[in-house]
């Protein structure tokens, strides 16, 4: 689906054209990644726009040792964490932030409540600690390998495997008992 070399070449010869290609290829997966982390469509929209503006600003300085996709997921994940941490800075605890996200899930114009199983599944994911949630989403939905997730989150691949295993167990338990 994504030919990163083609995007890199386009960026080198014509930044605007290259950036347009990059947006066409990445905006949907990056949006869904952000949405799963911050839940609200409106927040995800703002963060996505910020991510692409950052990418545009730093496109010239992008280091080629990492893949474009990994780089973008890293920027997006950092933006989400910054957004969630800004709530914690307002003297709101991690549990309260989690509760806020649950509330957003249950009161949104852009959630399909007819799909009760999918809503419950998202509730199960939101009940996970932040780090496990990020790892679970990147592995389960985006199908990134542990090495890529390791570069995105600055965490050792072995630790990520353990995180993913725990996350799956907790989700299973939530889905069975609730």
């Amino acid at each position, binding site marked *: 689906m994504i030919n990163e070399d083609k995007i890199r070449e386009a960026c080198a010869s014509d930044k605007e054209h290259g*950036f347009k290609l990059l947006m066409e290829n990445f905006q*949907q997966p990056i949006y869904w990644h952000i949405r799963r982390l911050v839940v609200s469509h409106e927040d995800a929209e703002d963060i*996505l726009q910020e991510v692409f503006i950052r990418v545009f600003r730093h496109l010239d300085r992008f280091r080629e040792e990492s893949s474009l996709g990994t780089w973008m997921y890293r920027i997006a994940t950092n933006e989400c964490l910054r957004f969630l941490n800004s709530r914690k800075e307002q003297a709101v605890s991690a549990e309260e932030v989690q509760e806020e996200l649950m509330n957003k899930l249950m009161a949104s114009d852009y959630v*399909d409540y007819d799909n009760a199983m999918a809503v419950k599944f998202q509730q199960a994911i939101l009940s996970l600690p932040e780090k496990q949630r990020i790892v679970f989403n990147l592995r*389960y939905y985006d199908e990134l390998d542990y090495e890529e997730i390791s570069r995105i989150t600055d965490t050792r691949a072995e630790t990520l495997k353990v995180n993913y295993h725990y996350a*799956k167990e907790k989700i*299973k338990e939530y889905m069975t008992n609730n």
Partner: protein
Amino acid sequence: MEKEFDFKNIGKQMPYRTPDGFFDRMQEQVSARTKVEKHKKQLRMRLVIAATLAAAAMVLGLVFFPAGTPEAEQVSSNSLLVATGIDYSYSDAMDNFIAEMPDDELEEWVELSEYDIFMN
């Protein structure tokens, strides 16, 4: 006994939706913002160049046309820059002024500058 949850039953289903045409609009919005970013950069460059040229012109003017002031004649040749009393922090001040300007004001300025015959 409760039946254990199987991930295969849910797959990658998500309940999340987006407004119609959201991704097309997003591309347009980001593209509009990147154009403003580009203009900002160009405007900054133009202002820095203009400020530098203006400062250089003032220095040259004072060096070559000292206006016959007695002080100018008394100045020793190796202390010209100090003796002219010019504030060389002018271009730095202009940089700081632009850097500190709020984004929305700067955007407005960029838009105005597009119709400014002296800048285009």
